[in-house]
């Protein structure tokens, strides 16, 4: 007897526990196996690129906070790096070091969230996520100390940073970076030898080296596939060429490798912060920038290695106080293009794990 079977369509999202915000995946399912997936996004579109054209350069920093709200600091940095390149502004050394410290803390915080949500999607009922939150809280407290904000910092300015660190900041930072490796080890021990976790992540969602490059993926997704590409090394901005750090890469490019790369990057970030604290010079934190910034006619592309990948801002100036055009290269969105390739042929449970391992932030995907 031949039973008649048919595929059916399952909507996951825009309101779904695993889609981290308002993202929608339209699965075509054959039982549990995914035949096709159509990612649908744009539910959080706020038109930030267009809005930016109506405001002055410093005012646009506020919008960048709202892109990837789990990594506002690095968004700030990418934008100001682009504007500084456009206007040819030299940033004081101390400001550069502060930026590096903040950006690396942000990377740790963002990776903690990425790993936590990945494990949550795999089904570890909230526990790892809440442990990750514990460490992230400490980082947010540091940010609170520096700029009075916990989520949208608006800390970096064109030509420097908005304020110098208070004197209690460095001791608190020291305590944090002393304790962090132990906590990260704790998570590794909890999860590294857990057979269920290995079963759920190894050989799931394998992205080959060539495919990763073809999708122009970046960040942990690219490095998980074994491509040693990190903007901090490949095109050093700020003062990154003064630090000693490794670029961890994966072997196979599966969910597990992407998870490992994130864990390793946290260790490397701690390493960088230690060096930056040791080298932190005294001096100015802001360059002399005219109050109404009017860069000369021209265009510039500034990019940094954000926690989720290459975050770039392409800015065109027509000589006025507002950018003529501002385009964002959102790593989340571009990494997401690999989703369809990775998900087809897997089961729903795997799809969620793969989706979690890409680590998107819908605020950045939709802009």
């Amino acid at each position, binding site marked *: 007897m031949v039973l008649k079977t048919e595929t059916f369509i399952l909507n996951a999202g825009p309101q779904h526990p*695993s889609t981290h915000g308002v993202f929608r995946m339209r699965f075509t399912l054959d039982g549990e196996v995914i035949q096709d997936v159509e990612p649908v996004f744009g539910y959080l579109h706020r038109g930030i690129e267009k809005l930016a054209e109506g405001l002055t350069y410093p005012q646009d920093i506020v919008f960048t906070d709202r892109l990837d709200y789990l990594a506002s600091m690095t968004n700030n940095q990418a934008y100001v790096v682009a504007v500084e390149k456009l206007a040819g502004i030299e940033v004081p050394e101390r400001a550069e070091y502060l930026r590096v410290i903040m950006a690396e803390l942000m990377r740790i915080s963002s990776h903690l969230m990425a790993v936590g949500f990945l494990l949550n999607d*795999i*089904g*570890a009922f909230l526990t790892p996520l809440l*442990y990750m939150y514990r460490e992230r809280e400490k980082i947010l407290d540091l940010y609170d100390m520096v700029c009075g904000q916990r989520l949208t910092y608006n800390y970096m300015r064109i030509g420097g940073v908005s304020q110098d660190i208070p004197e209690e900041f460095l001791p608190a930072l020291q305590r944090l970076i002393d304790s962090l490796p132990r906590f990260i080890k704790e998570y590794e021990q909890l999860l590294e030898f857990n057979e269920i976790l290995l079963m759920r992540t190894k050989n799931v969602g394998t992205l080959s080296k060539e495919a990763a490059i073809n999708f122009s993926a970046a960040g942990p997704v690219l490095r998980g596939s074994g491509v040693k590409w990190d903007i901090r090394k490949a095109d050093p901005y700020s003062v990154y060429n003064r630090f000693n750090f490794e670029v961890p890469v994966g072997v196979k490019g599966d969910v597990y490798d992407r998870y490992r790369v994130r864990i390793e990057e946290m260790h490397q970030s701690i390493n960088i912060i230690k060096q930056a604290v040791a080298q932190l010079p005294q001096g100015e934190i802001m360059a002399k920038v005219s109050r109404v910034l009017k860069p000369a006619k021209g265009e510039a592309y500034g990019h940094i290695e954000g926690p989720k990948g290459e975050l770039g801002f392409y800015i065109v100036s027509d000589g006025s106080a507002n950018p003529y055009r501002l385009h964002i290269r959102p790593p989340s969105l571009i990494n997401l293009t690999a989703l369809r390739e990775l998900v087809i042929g897997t089961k729903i449970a795997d799809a969620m794990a793969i989706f979690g391992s890409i680590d998107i932030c819908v605020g950045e995907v939709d802009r």
Partner: protein
Amino acid sequence: MMSIFGRSVLPPAVHPAMLAPDWPSGFWSHLIIFIVILFVFYIFMAMAFIYFERRVISRFQIRIGPNRIGPFGLLQPVADVIKILIKEDIVPNNVDKWIYLLAPAVAVVPSILIFAVIPFQNGASLIDLNIGILYVVAISSISVVGLVMAGWSSNNKYSLISAMRVIAQVVSYEIPMALAIIGVVVFSGTLSMNGIVQAQTVPYILLQPLGFVIYFLASMAEINRTPFDLLEAEGEIVAGFNIEYSGFKFALFYLTEYAEAIGVSTIITTIYLAGWKGPFLPPAFGIVWFLIKVFAVFALIIWVRATLPRLRIDQVMGFAWKCLLPLSLINLLITGAQVVFWPNLSQWVIVGVNFVLAGLLIALWSRFFKLTGDKVEV
């Protein structure tokens, strides 16, 4: 003749140690008193378990948990019940109405029926069936029909996937579960729940370590707790079978979930942890030991839930058929051999041998059975 009416339901000759205590009056008062006791126990324990789980799991997750309503948040379950009961009772348009309405009842009734044979104290059960454990195995899988009815009739794809998963899962895990129980029955020589407790001079968890592990894992799958909670895998299929339910009907499903957890805890307590038996307390306080053990088992279940991620459906099936089924057959073989060939061996020798064998077998299987990477199609 074995009569249902009266305490002589049990042929006293089933087990020499088995002596039902005298209850003050006849069958009907026993029946009515016990039904009341059971319902109070059922409702009270469900609320206690909800509170206990929320408090304990929040300790695992470095938070405090409910502590606002009543002292130590003890009234939180009451507040939850009130909240859930005053919610609007929605029946979506395109559901298969009769099945949809019947499903919660079908799910909840078997979860109550299990407690009929649980001995809370020596002989203190509603009815001490001489096939008690068989009755438990038979009844406990009926709840699944309710879940499948709910999943199917809701006319929702998420709940349909959930229903299909639960059928596959429960049917697979029923077999190792029953085989693990047979190991206990071989030692005790009786199927009566009270008889099994009385037969335990050494708790069967020591005599049957492998059987306990198998039973524990299989019953986790049976009641859909982590790591086998594919039924309501939040990250994948949102809430699973009960996605279209609200108000009182949802409350019944919620109750079923916890009642099954209570059921499994009490059964593990009874057949593996010597039920109401325990040192220090006079026999009249057997219920205290019983409750302590039930909560200890439930704490273990919570621990597992707080720690482990979820398996994928093919891995769940693979685990049942490739791992638990052969192990439970081997366990039965070992147990049978011990009872037949060395009936006079000291129990403590058997305890030692069985622990070593259990360790060896588990180690062997975890080497054989690296699920990592291999793909099993369902």
